[in-house]
C-alpha cells in the first residue's frame, strides 16, 4: 500500500518536472521569436513520426537506460556512482576487443560480448567499491578518477592494438557478426539503427527490479543504503554490500557501453568520454531511482535527442533548445526532491488552510444570511 502511494507521488514529481521543463522551453522559443507549438510539434514529430524514427529514439535511449540503471542501483545502496562513463568505456572496450579478436558465429560471439562487457564493467567499478569499503575513500572522488583512467586506457589500447585502417584516433569497424544490429530488426524499423540492445535493456530493467524488490540481496543492499548502522548492527556485512553494489552498477554501465559501441556505433573513438555516462545521473533522478522509472525517463530523453535535429531542420529553432529543455527538466527534477521532502507539510498546510477558510466563509455566509 505504502509503496503504491510512493510510486504515485514519484510519478507526479517527475511529471511536474517534465511539464515545467517543457514550459521553460516554450518560453525560450517564444523569446527567440519562434512559435513554441510549432517547435514542440516538430520536436516530437522528429522522434515519433515514423517507424524508423521510433526505432532511432529507442536506440538512443538504450545506453541511457543502462547508465540510468547503474546510477539508480548504486544509489539504492547509498552510493553515488559518477563513474558510469568510464565503466561504459571499459565495457565497450571489452565488447570491441572480443568482436575484433574472435571469428565465431554471431550467437556465440554476442553472448561472449554481453558477458565480457558485463564482467569488465563490474571489475572496473568494484575497485572504487573496494576502496570505499576498505579505506573509506569517497566513491564520488574515486569514480571520477576512474573515468579518466578509463579514458587514457582507451587512448593507449585502441591505437596500439585495434587501430583503424585510416585514422589513428579510432578502432577498426567491428565485423557484422559482432554487432548488436540484426537485419530483421533494422528492416522491421525501416532502416533504423535500433539494435538488440533495447531487448537487453528491458531484460535488465526487469532483473534490476526483481533484485531490488524480491531478493535477499536487494533487501540487504537497500538496508545498507537506508541505514548503514542499523544494517551493521543486524549482522549485515556492510563492506561486502558496498563492493557488490558497485560491481552490479558497473556491470550495468559496462553493458550500456557494449550497446553503445557495438550496437549504436560500430567502432570506438579515443579521447571521448561518453556523455551518456553522465546523463545516466539525470535519468536516474527523473526516474526516481526505480528501474521502470529509469526506463521511461531514458526513452523520453531519447525522444528529445532524436527529435531535436528534425526540429532544427523544419524551424529556425536551434537544436540547443532541446538540450536546454533537458537541462531544465533535470533542474526541476532535482529541486522536486525539496518539494517531496516537505510534501506532507505542504499537503497539511493546504488542507488545514482550506478547511479553515471554508469554515470561516461558511460562518460568514451563515451570519450574513441571518442579518
Amino acid at each position, binding site marked *: *500500500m*505504502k509503496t503504491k502511494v510512493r510510486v504515485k507521488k514519484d510519478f507526479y514529481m517527475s511529471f511536474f518536472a517534465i511539464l515545467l521543463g517543457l514550459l521553460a522551453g516554450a518560453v525560450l522559443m517564444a523569446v527567440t521569436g519562434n512559435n513554441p507549438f510549432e517547435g514542440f510539434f516538430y520536436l516530437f514529430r522528429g522522434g515519433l513520426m515514423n517507424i524508423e524514427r521510433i526505432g532511432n529514439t529507442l536506440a538512443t535511449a538504450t545506453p541511457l537506460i543502462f547508465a540510468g540503471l547503474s546510477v539508480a542501483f548504486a544509489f539504492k545502496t547509498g552510493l553515488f556512482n559518477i563513474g558510469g562513463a568510464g565503466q561504459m568505456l571499459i565495457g565497450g572496450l571489452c565488447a570491441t576487443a572480443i568482436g575484433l579478436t574472435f571469428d565465431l558465429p554471431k550467437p556465440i560471439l554476442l553472448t561472449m560480448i554481453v558477458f565480457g562487457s558485463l564482467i569488465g564493467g563490474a571489475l572496473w567499478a568494484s575497485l572504487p567499491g573496494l576502496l570505499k569499503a576498505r579505506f573509506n575513500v569517497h566513491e564520488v572522488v574515486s569514480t571520477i578518477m576512474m573515468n579518466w583512467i578509463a579514458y587514457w586506457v582507451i587512448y593507449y589500447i585502441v591505437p596500439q592494438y585495434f587501430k583503424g585502417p585510416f585514422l589513428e584516433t579510432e578502432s577498426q569497424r567491428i565485423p557484422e557478426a559482432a554487432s548488436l544490429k540484426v537485419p530483421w530488426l533494422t528492416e522491421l524499423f525501416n532502416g533504423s539503427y535500433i539494435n538488440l540492445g533495447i531487448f537487453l535493456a528491458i531484460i535488465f530493467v526487469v532483473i534490476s527490479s526483481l533484485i531490488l524488490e*524480491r*531478493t*535477499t*540481496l536487494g*533487501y*540487504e543492499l*537497500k*538496508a545498507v543504503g*537506508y*541505514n548503514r*548502522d*542499523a*544494517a*551493521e*548492527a*543486524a*549482522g*549485515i*556485512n556492510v563492506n561486502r554490500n558496498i563492493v557488490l553494489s558497485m560491481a552490479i552498477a558497473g556491470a550495468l554501465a559496462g553493458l550500456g557501453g557494449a550497446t553503445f559501441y557495438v550496437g549504436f556505433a560500430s567502432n570506438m573513438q579515443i579521447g571521448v568520454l561518453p556523455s551518456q555516462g553522465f546523463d545516466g545521473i539525470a535519468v536516474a533522478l527523473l526516474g526516481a531511482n526505480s528501474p521502470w522509472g529509469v526506463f521511461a525517463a531514458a526513452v523520453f530523453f531519447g525522444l528529445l535527442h532524436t527529435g531535436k535535429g528534425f526540429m532544427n531542420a523544419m524551424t529556425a529553432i536551434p537544436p540547443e533548445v532541446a538540450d536546454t529543455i533537458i537541462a531544465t527538466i533535470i533542474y526541476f527534477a532535482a529541486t522536486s526532491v525539496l518539494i517531496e521532502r516537505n510534501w506532507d507539510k505542504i499537503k*497539511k498546510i493546504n*488542507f*488545514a488552510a482550506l478547511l*479553515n477558510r471554508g*469554515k470561516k466563509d461558511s460562518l460568514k455566509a451563515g451570519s450574513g444570511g441571518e442579518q
Partner: protein
Amino acid sequence: MDYIVEMNNIRKEFPGIVACDDIDFQVKKGEIHALLGENGAGKSTLMNILFGLYQPDSGSIVLRGKKTNIANPNIANDLGIGMVHQHFKLVHNFTVTENIILGLEPTRALMVDTRSASSRIRELSKRYNLNVNPDAKIEDVSVGMQQRVEIIKMLYRDAEILIFDEPTAVLTPQEVQELTKIMHSLIDEGKTIILITHKLREIMSIADRCTVIRWGKVIGTVSVSETSEEKLAEMMVGRKVIFDLDKKEARPKEEILSLEKLTVNGKDGGHGLKSFSLGVKCGEIVGLAGVDGNGQSELIEAVIGLRKPDGGKILLHGEDISNLSIRERIEKGVAHIPEDRHKHGLVLDYTVQENFILKNYYQPPFSARGLLNWDTIYEHAERVIKDFDVRSGQGVEASARSLSGGNQQKAIVGREIDGNPDLLVAVQPTRGLDVGAIEYIHQRLLEQRDQGKAVLLISLELDEILDLSDRIAVIYNGELVGIVDADETDENEIGLMMAGGKRGAAV
C-alpha cells in the same frame, strides 16, 4: 485567586485526529502548573496554541481576565508569554548575548549594542541564580547551560508566564535538581510556570497543581499535595498502572555470558573498558549501573560484536566469541535492544514488516534460495505486532518512521524477543517512553528471565535498574566497582558506588 491564563473550550483538529477536544485549562498566578499526558495526548498542541504557533479551531483564551487573540508568537511575547521548547532554538556559533537579543537587538548609532545587553543579562543571571556567562558561545556550553540561556531569553523579554516543554528530558539528575531550584526562585519573583511533562516524579516534587490530558481531553485537574503518583498514572493511562512489578523469585541457572578481563580501548579519549570481568546466568537479570560515559558503550559494542576487544575474553556458553562476526553471535543467541533506536535499531525507511526480518531475512521461512517470501514475512509481522502490541496506522506496511517512539521501541523489543534469544542485551530499553510503554517493556524483560533466559540490562535510570535487576554491577571509569544483590541494596549505596566508592568503604 484569579486565573492568569484561562483556555476555554479549545478545539484543534488535524487531518485525521482531534488533538484538542474542547479543552478547559486554567492556571493561577504564581503557581507551577504541570500538564501531564502520554506522548501524543495533545499537551504540546495546547501549549503551541497558547504561544501563538497554532490557531484553535474554536474556543477562547482569556489572559489576566481579558479575552485575547494570540495570532503569532510575537504577540505572545508582548503578552508576557515565553516558552522553552524541548529542542532549544539557539544559534550555535553565536554567543549567549547574541542569542538572547536576537530579534530585538538594541542599537546605538546603527551598531548593535551588545554591551548594555550583556550587562542586563549578567544582572538577570545573578538575580535568578542562573550562572550564565553572556560572552560564552553556545557550542561551548553544556546542555543544562543552554536551557538556562533559554530561560534568560524569556526573562529578558519580560515574560511572566513561562512554558517549559519537557525540560528535564535532556538533563542529568544534578541538572534536574538545579532546574527545580531555578523554577522555585522564578515563582518567588512572581512568575507563573506551566510545565509540560510525562514524568510523574517530577510533578510530585515540583508542581503545585496538575492537569491530566488523555486523547485530547482533560481528565481532571488535581492539587499535587492531594494526589499520588499512582493516581496520576492511572489518570494519564486510563487504567491501573502496576508500579510494583510482578517479580517472582529469580531462579538462576548456569552462567551463559562470562566476560573475562575484557579490555577495550576508549574512543575519542574516553575511559574504555579496563580488565572488566562479569558473569550473567540464565534466568536472571543483571543490571549495569553507572554514570553515562564510564565504559558502558564499549562493553555493549564488544559483546554484540560492533568492536573487537583489545584484551580479555567474551565467553558465551563457555565458547570464546570475541572474534566472531555480529551475525555469528546473533545466530548463537545474542539479541540486542540498542540505545539509539533510530541509529542502530530500525531502518526507518523500511516498513514495519521489513524491519521485523532485519536479522533473519536470509533464513527460512522468510526466504528460500535468495528470494524473499513476502507472504510469510507479512504473516509473521502481523503476529508480532499483535503479540507485542505495536500500534501502527497502516499496520505492518507502514514505514517504521511513521510510528510513535513508543511503538518503534515495542517493535524492536518484539523483533529481538521473538527471535527467542538466550542472552538479551537491553540498553536503555525505555528511554523517552511513556508510562504505559515502560510498564509493558519491563514486563516483557521479566518474562524473558522467568523463561530461563539471561538479560543484561544497561540503563542510566537507577530506578529501572533497581526495579528489574536481580544483581547489579556498578561500572566506574571503565572498571567494575562491585556487584551487589538487588534485594540487599538501595539507591544510596549504588549512588556512592557509581561515583567510584568501593562497597563497604563508606561504612
